């Protein structure tokens, strides 16, 4: 086995220090080492986006980041953006608009969508569709996902 590397990660506000093989993928560090199984793996080729998390505030595919590359980073996963009692507005919007079916792509979809709104708070439908081109869903046909994101945008706009 190759020598391990010590990595510090701030995940959902909690500091973690891990000794990892350099090849450990960030998604496996989160799932297998930290027990944060809300982040999913759906492909081998950085296409499906089910593993999307926020790393230093930006949406990234955690299956294509080595844990060692994330040393010192702030990571937010689906578990970190809201809880059942205190849902993130994007989680609430997905629930209200039937933006999910099997739920497998949903955490990645929500993480991408919330990053998209952080960058562009009032996107058009087309901008939402292009913003989510890195997240595959096989159940919803995207209709209600797009509706959810636009709903979340209009609600946060109303609050502002």
């Amino acid at each position, binding site marked *: 086995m190759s020598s391990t590397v010590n990595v510090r990660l701030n995940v959902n506000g909690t500091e973690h220090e891990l000794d990892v093989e350099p090849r450990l993928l960030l998604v496996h560090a989160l799932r297998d080492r930290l027990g944060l199984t809300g982040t999913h793996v759906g492909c*081998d080729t950085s296409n499906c986006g089910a593993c999307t998390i926020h790393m230093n505030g930006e949406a990234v595919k955690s299956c294509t980041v080595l844990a060692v590359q994330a040393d010192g980073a702030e990571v937010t996963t689906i578990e970190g953006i809201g809880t059942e009692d205190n849902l993130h507005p994007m989680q609430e919007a997905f629930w209200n608009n*039937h933006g999910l079916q099997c739920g497998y792509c949903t955490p990645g979809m929500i993480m991408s969508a919330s990053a998209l709104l952080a960058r562009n708070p009032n996107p058009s439908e087309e901008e939402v569709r292009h913003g*989510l081109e890195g997240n595959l869903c096989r*159940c919803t046909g995207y*209709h209600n996902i797009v509706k959810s994101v636009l709903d979340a945008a209009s609600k946060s706009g109303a609050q502002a």
Partner: protein
Amino acid sequence: MSVTGAAPAGHVGRELRRKEDPRLITGRARYVDDISLSGQLWAAFVRSPEAHAKVVSIDTSAAAARDGVHAVFTGEDMSDLGGALPMAWVPPGVEVNNPEHWPLARGVVKHVGDPVAVVVGDDRYAVSDAVEDVIVEYEPLPAVIDPEVAIAGAPYVHDQFGTNEVHQWSLAGGDVEAGFAEADVIVERRVVNHRIAGAPIECRGVLADYRAGSLTLYTSTQVPHFVRLFMALLLGLGEDHVRVVAPEVGGGFGQKLQVYGEELFACWASRKLGRPVKWIETRTENMTVAHQGRDQISHVKMGAKRDGTITAFHVKILADFGAYNMILTPLIPSLGAFVMGGCYKIPNVQTDITGVFTNKCPTDAIRGAGRPEATQMIEVTLDQLAHELGMDPLEIRRRNFIPKEDFPAETATGVIYDSGDYHKTLDKLMEHVDVAAFRAEQKELRRQGVYRGIGFCTWTEICGLAPSRITGPNGVGVQAGLWESAMIRVHNTGAVTVYTGTSPHGQGLETAMAQIVADKLGVDPSVVEVVHGDTSIGPEGRNTYGSRSLATGGEAVARATDKVVDKAKAIVAAELEAAPEDIEVANGKFSVRGSPDKGMALADVAGVAYIGAVPEGMEPGLEETTFYDPENFVFPFGAHACVVDVDPETGKVNVVRYVAVDDCGRAINPMLIDGQVHGGVVFGIGQALYERVYYDDSGQLTTGSFVTYAIPTAAEMPSFETDRTETVSPVNSLGAKGVGEAGTIAASAAVTNAVIDAVRPLGVDYMNMPLSPMRVWEAINQGQGASPEGGPQS
């Protein structure tokens, strides 16, 4: 929320947001890979790179010697199995060639990805290293990839049969030859429904735990009860000692309606090693070895009178089954045959099916299973016929619709459609689509060089599987009853648990079933918990596929609830000194008709039932079970319109608008129905425009990832317009029909017709899917009707 809280009247029909969602949107759901057991080992498969080869030798020594590797197994190690993987269709009077199919190949591999060995080790990283150290020597054998070549003769996929033919099966009604003799016009086409993948975003995965004589298997499946039966049979265990759990399942689309070798291996290995064994499929594996769908080449012939009346429809299907028969492989094209007349009154209909082996991944049920293929054959051919006759494509449909007075309507082949009103759905579609305005716009756009087209599909299908007497051993030949079960438990507090034998995985059945039960029991859906997917909890079940879970599973739930209501009424009647027939459920209470103030909430009834203060002769408790076997299938229907733009220079097709009007009987939760239609439509658009499983001439799969297998993204799709009519089904008390496959069944034909409509002025009269940019460009180039696959021959 109080479990005794009064409910608003009528949850059925409401767009209740889903009970499933809180765990899913917060990342708290548990899919197979989210479950870990102490001491678990990991498995990784060594798979054939050859399409057809003799396995000369397997050297496992280097892999076995690696740190972290516990065992390496090959096919020989698994000689103690009780049998090969199952194929559960035995059609009376039909011979089906059925080769043995083992979890690990025994001496010969039949398609790329066929497993030859498995490494079991400490973690997923260790085993993925070790598989590279297993050295397999192959002696390539001639491979046959094209089904039309395979059916012609040698080389054979399975030499022992002396043919690549799997079976022949026909369903005929009337006399097609007589019908063609009456016809003024006959069109013939070659219709290709190319091979596609189910491609759920969660790949398959298993975690088997055998300890002290009992086996628990967590598996990402649609059919935990079928898996339990076959694990027990093939491992020689009592079924009572096998528990199969389908935890959260990340999509199925038919791909997880299967009993897979990887499931059997994990169970076998856990028993052998005394440790839990986990296997999580990679996407590459999923694209390579999880069963695929469609892959039918059909020669269709449709005849009509000059006025558009269809006189006969004859379809000859060559169905590519790949290298093995999976659990229902050879049955799939037959599901299309049952509705080969579509929603039309056609006196003479015949479907002749030939199954063929090739050195490719097996096919089996994928969303729609036989019915999207049939609908493509019917609806695309009908447009061709309309064009030939110079008729409007909607006019020819209206002329041939089975009129609503005919229902229940028996088709030429003896299938009885339960209910329908096809004009009504098409009328409703016309409220959304102004065809005359479209044609004017289309003309104007063409002047500007924009090639816009519109395509229609008026469809029906057969679902709600299934009346066991029709599908069972003495009927169609499926070796199982396809009834469904439900158990309703009212707890002491009045909370309710529903145990359904279905195994939903995204459809929203927890919500829809809760709505049904809540109305009947006068409680809020929030106090109704729906439990599924665990064979050790609740009655034996028949699981989820074929758009059955509401029409069949939901009806079982309704019937079991009715039994609870009957008992509750008897208890209430005794308590209130009234007659049971005078008790009604209103405003959240069981009360005496006419005296709404006097009544008992469900919690009060349960209190009496569990204290045992029940009327004499009645058992205590408030819990009922039902096994429901439907009298007939249900036949949803609809009318879809698709508008596309075709770039005449590049051939690229863009879906501009899609309108779907569907009728799935009574709408229990319209929000869920729309969601099923949206997803189904994109599945069908995906097949028509983007997706294709492709093997090269040597049998190498060239679409083994989401890079090369192009499922649509949000950026390619438009928003959809959906509407519905509600023509209740007489088959079940809910009046409901299935909707999970509807969109898929309709969409590919609507898209195909739209693309042909767009490019007709460029000289293209007919095209087959996939309508990829290059193929459309080639068709336009060839022009004047000479299309790439099968020109018009009328």
